[in-house]
């Protein structure tokens, strides 16, 4: 890995960010509906009031100057204020981000914790009953929408057994135990799907690596089965797995929209959906931009880590 490679990747990163910012801006302007009319109520508004608000929000300026203002704002990190509540967008996004982040990390933790041992177990007993049972459950996991898992979880653990709250959010600092109890179901609903995807990958790469020449060499040289497995097979099998974990982290951070809306968690996805409905452009733009930026950054980080972890990868 050279400085030149890093420079090029950083350039790509900036390009993608600009592209995203542009697409987000123009896509949102296509959405029918006027934010000012939405805010004031559809009828019985005086033209003056509408005009005043338009000027205040900068909506009277041309689309192009609004666009450049948006780009300038991103660079300075100032996303303006919410049209509806007047709260600085950056504050809304920051508090939502922390909720989404905690949720995604819990889910990822569940996914990883389940997929590594189960993936290994399936691969080591390839073709036998254990393997069949595990791969079938993984397939079930990836074939179920997370909102179905969420509703199933609510029905079993909240409605029937009454062990866990149905929905809602408690800040961690206020009451750590309650906060955790509110996070259990959402993170399991998200995490099980990831577990299925990750487990299939773990199994596949352990099986693939086990068939490699170097494994036979190691065995021929008399290495213990433990050494062969953890020293040789796992070391290599973890590489593709780690890439997928990174991708999954990006997907989870950006894919909590539905889970958040089911469990009434005030995260980024819910911020986005709610404000799309109210045409609160600054908030939606910022939320979508932040979600996308996290996703892009996560992928960038994986690429970077991958070249560090695997010296065989020659960067063009």
């Amino acid at each position, binding site marked *: 890995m050279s400085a030149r490679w890093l420079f090029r990747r950083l350039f790509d990163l900036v390009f993608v960010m600009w592209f995203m910012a542009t697409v987000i801006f123009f896509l949102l302007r296509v959405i029918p509906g006027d934010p000012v009319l939405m805010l004031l109520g559809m009828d019985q508004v005086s033209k003056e009031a509408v005009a005043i608000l338009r000027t205040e929000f900068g909506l009277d300026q041309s689309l192009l100057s609004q666009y450049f203002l948006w780009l300038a704002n991103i660079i300075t990190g100032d996303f303006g204020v919410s049209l509806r509540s007047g709260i600085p967008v950056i504050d809304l996004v920051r508090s939502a981000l922390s909720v989404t982040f905690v949720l995604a990390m819990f889910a990822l933790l569940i996914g990883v914790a389940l997929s590594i041992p189960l993936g290994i177990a399936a691969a080591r007993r390839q073709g036998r009953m254990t393997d069949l049972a595990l791969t079938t459950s993984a397939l079930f996991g*990836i074939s*179920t929408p997370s909102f179905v898992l969420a509703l199933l979880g609510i029905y079993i653990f909240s*409605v029937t057994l009454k062990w866990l709250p149905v929905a809602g959010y408690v800040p961690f600092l206020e009451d750590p135990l309650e906060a955790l109890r509110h996070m259990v179901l959402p993170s399991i609903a998200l995490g099980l799907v990831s577990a299925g995807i990750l487990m299939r990958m773990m199994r596949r790469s352990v099986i693939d690596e086990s068939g490699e020449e170097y494994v036979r060499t190691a065995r021929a040289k008399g290495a213990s089965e433990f050494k062969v497995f953890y020293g040789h097979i796992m070391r290599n099998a973890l590489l593709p797995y780690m890439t997928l974990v990174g991708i999954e982290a990006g997907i989870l951070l950006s894919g909590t929209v*539905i889970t958040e809306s089911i469990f009434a968690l005030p995260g980024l996805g819910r911020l986005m959906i709610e404000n799309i409905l109210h045409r609160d452009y600054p908030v939606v733009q910022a939320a979508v931009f932040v979600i996308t930026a996290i996703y892009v950054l996560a992928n960038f980080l994986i690429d970077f880590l991958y070249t560090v972890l695997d010296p065989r990868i020659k960067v063009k």
Partner: protein
Amino acid sequence: MKDSKSGLTSGELQMAEMPNLASVILRNLFRSPAGIFGFGLTIIILICAIFAPVLAPADPLLQNLTRATILQLPNLDHLLGTDPLGRDILSRLFYGARTSLLVAGSSVATAVLLGMVLGSLAATLGGWCDRVTMRLMDSMLAFPLMVLAITISVALGRGPVGAIVAIAVVNLPTFTRLARAKTLKINQSQFMTAATVMGAGLLWRFVHHIVPNMINTIIVQTSIALAFAVLMESALSFLGLGIQPPAPSLGFMIAEARNFLTLAPHVVFFPATAIFLIVLGLNLLGDALSDTLDVRKER
């Protein structure tokens, strides 16, 4: 195109070498239980969807709003019970599967066709055409899929068209990249050089050489993309962005019924199972196909 005599010869040669794709697929598919199950499940669901008007025991939109007729448990009149508006759930499932598959199918078909054309054009023409196309596809992949799909379907207005375009756009980069990679390889082969020397045009080469040689990989990716598209369609309609009520869609059926989870869990359970079965069938089919067509080794 028929007057291009040389091209016809090479095209026939090419076709003669290829065994009948459909029969190869079917023969190998039935070797594994997963393949049989996935194929069978998908066929059954397809039949339910296509023949929904014949199979459905009742009008899926017919409401019956009395205390006795809403949220009924499965009974002889309504085999799967009734929903919060007293509509027959089984009939709604048939029609819901139909819309689900229609949206997923047409969006994936769009992505496949457009992706194949764009990808092979990019690979064949090269230069700035290649660079611009692939940069665009990379940038599209940089978006989180769900967020991109939601934004597009909101921008285009709620309804089937918005959902179809959103899901097609989200799937397009994968197919374009796949088609490009395959075409680059195919273009280097000798039969391609021969065809070009004999004067086969761009369209001829595409139809008679490029498409038959990458169809295996595309078929496998299509079944995976279909499963994903059904999931995405159900998620969009769950959020109220897909098919608009009162038209039945599996995702929105769940969204409508979720407030009655305590009272009547079966109203949520049945459409959820329907989505699960559709996606499971397609996933099994995809797994079996990728083993059969041996695509994994090629990648």
